[in-house]
């Protein structure tokens, strides 16, 4: 094994040819992905945008999302949104755990105008989705976003989130 040189996140070895695809993979750029939501009705005319970035050949994934709610939106239960790839929720003892913290969220009540905030937690042990922790329930910021928590969603409200995680795939 020859001397190892690091460029971005890829580890190169002596004699390796730098090709355009390798170099392009070391760039940091975002692409859209199609997220699936649970418990969320966006409403007529509402929009959801979700992006991710997985640089190089590593397992670090950045993601974000933004919903503008349309007419007659609703939350029917604790809401979740899928990640672009499965997160690795195992620790070094191979014990699966939910609620790995993976980022932050802002929820704008457009009519009020209020701006609630909290943190994202991975929803399930398979690491496919995130939920929205720290939502105000009228007493304390201890719930996840769900029906009427932190408020009843209405047209033109905005929910956005961002974060990163270690990918399992």
């Amino acid at each position, binding site marked *: 094994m020859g001397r190892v040189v690091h*460029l*971005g996140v890829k580890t190169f070895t002596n004699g390796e040819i*730098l*090709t*355009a695809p390798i*170099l*392009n993979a*070391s*760039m*940091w*750029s*975002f692409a859209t992905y199609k997220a699936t939501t649970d418990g969320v009705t966006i409403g007529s005319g509402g929009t959801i945008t979700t*992006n991710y*970035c997985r*640089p190089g050949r590593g397992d670090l994934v*950045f993601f*974000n999302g*933004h919903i*503008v709610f349309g007419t007659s939106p609703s939350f029917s239960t604790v809401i979740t949104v899928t990640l672009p790839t499965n997160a690795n929720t195992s620790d070094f003892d191979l014990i699966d755990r939910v609620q790995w913290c993976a*980022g*932050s*969220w*802002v929820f*704008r*009540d457009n009519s*009020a105008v*209020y*701006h*609630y*905030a*909290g*943190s994202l937690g991975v929803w399930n042990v398979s690491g496919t989705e995130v939920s929205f922790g720290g939502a*105000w329930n*009228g007493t304390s*910021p201890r719930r996840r976003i769900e029906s009427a928590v*932190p408020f009843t969603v209405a047209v033109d409200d*905005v929910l*956005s*989130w*961002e974060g990163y995680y270690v990918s399992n795939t």
Partner: protein
Amino acid sequence: MKTFATGDKITSSILNSTMWSFAAYTATTTAITLGTGGVITTNYCRIGTGDLVFFNGYITFGTSPAITATCHITLPTAADVTAIQWCVGSWVFRDDSVPDHYAGSLGIWDTGGAEISFAGAWDGTAPRDRVRVGVPMTVAVGDRLSWEGWYISA
């Protein structure tokens, strides 16, 4: 973002631009008076020639500081958004005299993606406001406001 083509030459400037290092930038604040002796430090890192930008900032307030309205602070480059309140990070606001430590998330302030505001601030009833005059507390000498995050650059 740079896309390499077969036959491109790898120059030192290209290699150097793929390194991870932070640089300072001069942020513009709105509705914030740092106070005498107060300092603000803001940094950013844009890796390679991609569109991912990391940023952070830290204010130590001096004598007679003030926050006069909903405060907002410029990003190092404009974020690639067309709607407000894209979530881009987190903040901590230390009330140094107590001490208390409030926290929340950053949202893009404007559709041009130029600035951030500080959501989830306690207004006396719920953590639902943005940092502004008297929210989450009246700023005083020695208080600290810090934030960090990342976004997609326009």
